[in-house]
């Protein structure tokens, strides 16, 4: 694997230290070099006017086109993301693919979040979670594992930002050319 790139693609400036925090967590979780992209390009045509949300599928498509070849790319944004069947998503990834995206928009709920560090923690966990999908992992039932399902901020808060042993083994097996 040619590593992972983390790219801020939000409308506003990211909070200070946030992207670095994500970088550290992702690096630790997958044990691969993680690079930060600081390209000012931003996805276009992703806004659904009726829903006033951004289609995460379209963001993924944009990341695939614009991302560096050979590496997995994680877009980090502050816009509210959705997939057509759901009211919102924290993020989305191509299962076993290249691109993943996470948003801080819904991680701030329920408003107001008293501790801003909490949002950064949640973001790091979801970054690992979506990149895990891009590595081919499905949801995991091991308590605390970052690949646990994230249907609500409660789900996010109840897990850690790292992968459990079996998810790590699954990634190693996939990297070795098979699936466990």
């Amino acid at each position: 694997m040619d590593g992972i790139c983390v790219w801020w693609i939000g409308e506003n400036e990211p909070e200070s230290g946030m992207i670095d925090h994500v970088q550290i967590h992702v690096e630790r979780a997958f044990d691969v070099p993680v690079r930060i992209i600081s390209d000012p390009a931003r996805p276009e045509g992703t806004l659904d006017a009726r829903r006033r949300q951004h289609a995460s599928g379209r963001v993924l498509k944009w990341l695939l086109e614009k991302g560096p070849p050979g590496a997995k790319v994680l877009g980090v944004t502050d816009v509210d993301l959705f997939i057509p069947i759901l009211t919102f998503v924290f993020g989305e990834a191509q299962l076993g693919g290249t691109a993943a995206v996470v948003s801080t928009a819904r991680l701030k709920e329920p408003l107001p979040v008293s501790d801003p560090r909490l949002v950064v923690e949640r973001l790091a966990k979801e970054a690992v979670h979506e990149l895990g999908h891009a590595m081919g992992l499905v949801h995991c039932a091991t308590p605390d594992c970052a690949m646990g399902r994230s249907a609500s901020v409660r789900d996010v808060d109840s897990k850690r930002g790292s992968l459990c042993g079996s998810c790590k083994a699954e990634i190693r097996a996939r990297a070795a050319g098979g699936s466990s």
Partner: protein
Amino acid sequence: MSNENIKVLVIDDEEIVRESLGGWLEKDGYTITLMPDGMSALEYLKTNAADILLVDLKMPGIDGLQVLEEAKRLQPAAIVVIMTAYATVDTAVSAMKLGAYDYLVKPFDPEELSLMLEKIVSQQALRHENDVLRKALKRDWGFHDLISKSPAMQKVFELSRVAAPSASTILILGESGTGKEVLARAIHAESPRSGGPFVAVNCAALTESLLESELFGHEKGSFTGAVARRKGKFEAADGGTLLLDEVGDVSPKLQLELLRVLEERKFHRVGGNEPIQVDVRIVAATNRELMKLVADGRFREDLYYRLNVIPITLPPLRDRREDIPLLVERFVEGLAVELQKPIEGVTPEAMAALMAHAWPGNVRELRNVLERGAVVAKTKLIDVADLGLPAASDPSAPAVQPGTLEDVERHYIEDVLAQTGGNVTQAARILAIDRVTLYKKIRKYGLRRGAGEEDAAAEGGVEIRNAR
């Protein structure tokens, strides 16, 4: 979490919805199949199993409710969730009535979808576990078509298993409706004679001369009406098993003839001279107290001992009430198929009433009560009112409506038969008429005589039947 064994079918005409839902569920590890319309989904379901169906309500061609209805018919165990962009109470009610598990309004809240699927999966897992357990229990508790977990019945099964392979005569004792014929069939099936015929004769249903001819056959011209030679049941059962049901009602003359056959394994057709030898295993059954009949001089002692080689007594249902839930489940399953009605069980109140009833007609009566309940029930569960059980003590039971004398007679016979659980001998005794007369009246009025022949496979068996 291993969801890969759970097959989810997403049916939606909007590709973007299909793909996004499929993609989301795929990350939960489910095995996903996407279908663009109802027709292709139903085609798919004809040959492929699905555990969960997520079906869009509004689709061109076959809509979601039609898919739901047909899918439930094709795969009753599948869980169907209806999805719609337009929630109306009417469609929600229709969907639930048709057996939908739930109703989701698009777009869904991720948590709502997750929790619902989690619930379905755990319920499915529980159901699967229950099925496996139930099957295991039935295997342990069953003896062919009989089922029981009561210690008394387990002893009956044990004895039957041991006795079946031998050629010895078996005497089955028990009240009517306890399943004597079903046990006789089970013993036959368990015996080395299972490839041979099983023939049952109801000794109480015929007059002496008719029964004699029925058992032994007759030669042409042996009596008025004997226009051709006819083989009897002993010959018909050659190589197999002959059930002499209600043997306690056999006349003294025929008792002697039966004794001879049992001793010599030979007999003569009525009007015949040639002795006929047969290889028949005799199983006799009666609801009478044979010892008492012997003491009263109404049953030959020597015949009694010939028959009473291996006695097996079936306990009445009131002495094995713990079996009622098991039997209810068995009968409800069968009735749902027979009546093609989605009956799933009985309400707790109905079960309480079933447990409390005295069951004079035993298992057969239970089956008949459940059949009535299944026919009358308006929901998937049979309720206490559907059963039509008499109140514990109901002196104000409705009197017969004014009508013709025949109406009154028909109703009265019906009531007495219901009380005796369809036992004609007992009913005849209560009515103080002979059995043949009662049989004629039953035929005349077209009355139900309890379980029919087709119930022979069900526990409770058939005790009332015309010897053929």
